[in-house]
């Protein structure tokens, strides 16, 4: 146990990190322990089971020398006429942060969502969680809304969203510069005066 719990950051070689998709009941306590330790919201065992049993292919665990040091838990489904993915929990143990582990975990989950036909991915994050916000920002998530006192602890949240490219979007169409709205109010005022 000793040799894996006290890395000062440089010791962990990224190639030693192993990523696996959720593979059964033996993974559940590992996930629960990580999330319980690091996230503010309390989740019952039903919540965990809800996710990992219905969407085991969207949950991933990261191991270092046999120790579980990070996890992502997600789901997907119909929501108001769109098929969307939802990232419920993401945690990496402190000594293992800033190595791209969370990015890798989330990326794997999002890829499965995309391949399964999701149109978008959403999640909520505390407005104060700079690390998570930066991470998701780099992945292309936008902050779609602010949710006032969303969490039990009274903190606001952002609803983050990632929209996948839509194959049916019209291709770039030429819009000549002369057509764009470039005039100032002063000019449009004149235009108005010249009119009938």
């Amino acid at each position: 146990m000793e040799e894996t719990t006290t890395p000062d950051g440089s010791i962990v070689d990224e190639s030693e990190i192993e990523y696996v998709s959720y593979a059964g009941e033996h993974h559940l306590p590992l996930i629960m322990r990580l999330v319980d330790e690091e996230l503010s919201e309390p989740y019952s065992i039903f919540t965990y089971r809800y996710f990992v049993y219905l969407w085991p292919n969207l949950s991933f665990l990261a191991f270092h020398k046999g120790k579980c040091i990070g996890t992502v838990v997600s789901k997907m489904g119909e929501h108001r006429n769109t098929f969307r993915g939802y990232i419920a929990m993401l945690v990496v143990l402190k000594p293992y942060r800033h190595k791209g582990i969370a990015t890798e975990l989330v990326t794997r989950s999002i890829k499965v969502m995309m391949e399964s036909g999701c149109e978008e991915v959403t999640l909520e994050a505390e407005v104060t969680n700079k690390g998570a916000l930066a991470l998701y920002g780099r992945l292309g998530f936008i902050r779609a809304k602010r949710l006032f006192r969303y969490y039990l602890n009274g903190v606001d949240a952002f609803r983050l969203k990632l929209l996948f490219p839509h194959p049916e979007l019209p291709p770039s169409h030429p819009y000549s510069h002369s057509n764009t709205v470039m005039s100032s109010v002063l000019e449009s005022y004149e235009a108005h005066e010249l009119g009938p």
Partner: protein
Amino acid sequence: MEENINNGVEEQESANHEPTSVPVLNPSIPSGEQTVWADVASLLDSACNDLQDGELIHGDNFNLFAAMSALEIMDPKMDSGIVCRYYSVDEAIEDGAAPIPLSLNKTVDVHCMIDVMDHMLSCEATWHKGHSLAQTIFSCIYLLRPDRTSSHALLHSYCTVIRSTCNAVISAVSDSRTHEEEDLFTITSGLPLKRDGDEKCLSMLNVIEETISRQLHACKSPSHKKRSIEDIEPLQTNLDLEEGYCKAVLCRLRFRKHFYHVLVCLRRPQGRGLELARKHIASCLVELDSILKTEEFLRANNRNGMWEDGMESEDSTTASGCQPIGFDSTLNSRLSAPTPPRAIKVFCWKKAVEYFQKLLHDLDIVCSHPIDPLHEGALRFVVEFQKLQPDLVARSHLQLLLVQDGKLFGRDPIFTMICKAAAVPELAKNLDIQKNESFVHLCQLAITLLKILCTNAAWQRRQLGKVLQDWRIIHMQLEIALRKEFEESSSTSLDENLCMKIYKNILNWVEEQTYWIAFRFLILGFELELYAPSEYCMVYWYIYVILIKLGEKMHLRMITNSETAKRKGKKKRESMKDVAREPAIPPAVLLLQCQIYLAEGLTLMISALRNEHGVFQCRGPFNSEQERFIQHFELLQKACIPDHVSYYTFRDYTAHSQFDTLIMCNYFKEAQRIAKELRGSFVNDKNKLTELRHIEQVAEHNGIALNLVSRLGSLDPSLKVSFEFNHHPHFATAVVKRS
């Protein structure tokens, strides 16, 4: 996956299968039409034996919400029913947690009473700031058993005024209720909030105030040491402390009295109580100052031996630093079920006083608003008011003042207000037109808009986004109605002419409102921190496009307005000439022009940075900038605000911007110049002057940054540009640094 957790056993089914083995469990609860009560213990037992680890028996409707609502019993993070100290209020009382009197020693009793008052104030502020009533004010055991206190006049009257105040605040917030996010505030289920006799709270308070001020007077008179005034019994027994205690109690009582008056006055119809409310607000603030001044006295006497310790002053919820008697926040946590109890930290006393000072200042501003029936004035007032970041209670009162009985200030029908705003000729108000369905709808939209503007910024932005569509639709409907009217009523020519004018003006006004809402929607995104720096470019571009439209509509309205005004004053012949000559552009439009230049300048500067320096680009592994654009502006695009604008318009507009062309037509310089010139036009408008000053600062700094980057940028790759909002809440200032 579904089979894994659904082991095929459901309680409901089993009940149906074995209707015969019925030990009646609870006959008082009817079992429903096609069902009967059954004991499922044995069935569950055998089901348990069949269950593998991780399997779950559930109904079809077991979804995320059901999973999240499930509790783990005895986990303090989730189980709000967990017993903390006492099982019940009665048990707490029996255990002596809330004695009456608070102490048999009169001095200690008064001291404790003051602690109760102070802690209550801390609880009240905590409640206003978004925690549940049950876990804050009603953590007070005395309040939970209102009849117990009647033998203690001071405690009793204090509890009564607290209850009445809570009721007044709750009714204001729930009457102005626009959304569920703040519902927690008004949840009162199971709390003894109303008690017969509470309506007499002010007279009770007056009686006790009278008594104590006589006691104060008596102890101050030189003869009191000789105890010559037999008919006045002192507040407590230590005569050296009598004056201090009388004063400490009095200012606390008086604060409650005036605060209650404020709440009552604010609710008078048509703003008739506002002047009086302001007087009580001033008194409240005076009493709060007095309360603050009693801290020293109370602390000194606390240290002098009644309680040894006390928490450090910074965290204390009382002036004296003592823990108050008679509170237990865990007693009520069950009331929050099934949601888990929220973590709660009661405000410290100092912060509570500060909260009330801020609330009172905000309410004072609400009261100071002139009751004039101008729609634009009302909108501008709300927007300015929101800049102070008022809390829920103040915002609710503003909304109740603005919209009463569907009228502005409860007086002016919204239709009249719209006619005025849209510069519709006076005559129109009598016309049947306002019975037209579209106009009725329009009036509702205008009211909704006012209400939305009074809500918290997060909710406000979402609602503004939603109503944009409605404003677009009403515009279409009005256009159709206009055409119909035109076709049908070609008989009476004078009326028809007037009708056309009304429609045209109102159509223009509707569009102006729409663009104004869109603008506000976009800039609130800055306040809420919804935009990443790499998205600023598209956001400023969109703001720029919207502002141009807004400027057009606003200008058109102003021209029409001055035409109408002139026509009234002068003969027709002259007015035609005047319009043609009209040289001056109204200052309000010029101010908008400054903002347009800023938005345009920022768009082009950032896109030049993107094109030439490769920074501020939206790149991600899964999507492109186009998807971000679609998501941010989805609601605007859906409502065609404005028409003919898409991601491609933005891309083409910014694709070729470069510093050397940008420097030739420096938008920032223009903005700065106009802003300077405009100062004279707004000498009496403090808010506009502030805005102008901020615009000038942003323009100046960005102008300098632009020059710097365009001169050195390509030579010095270590130059880094970032954006800050230190001069203006939504127009960014470029900061250039060498990294």
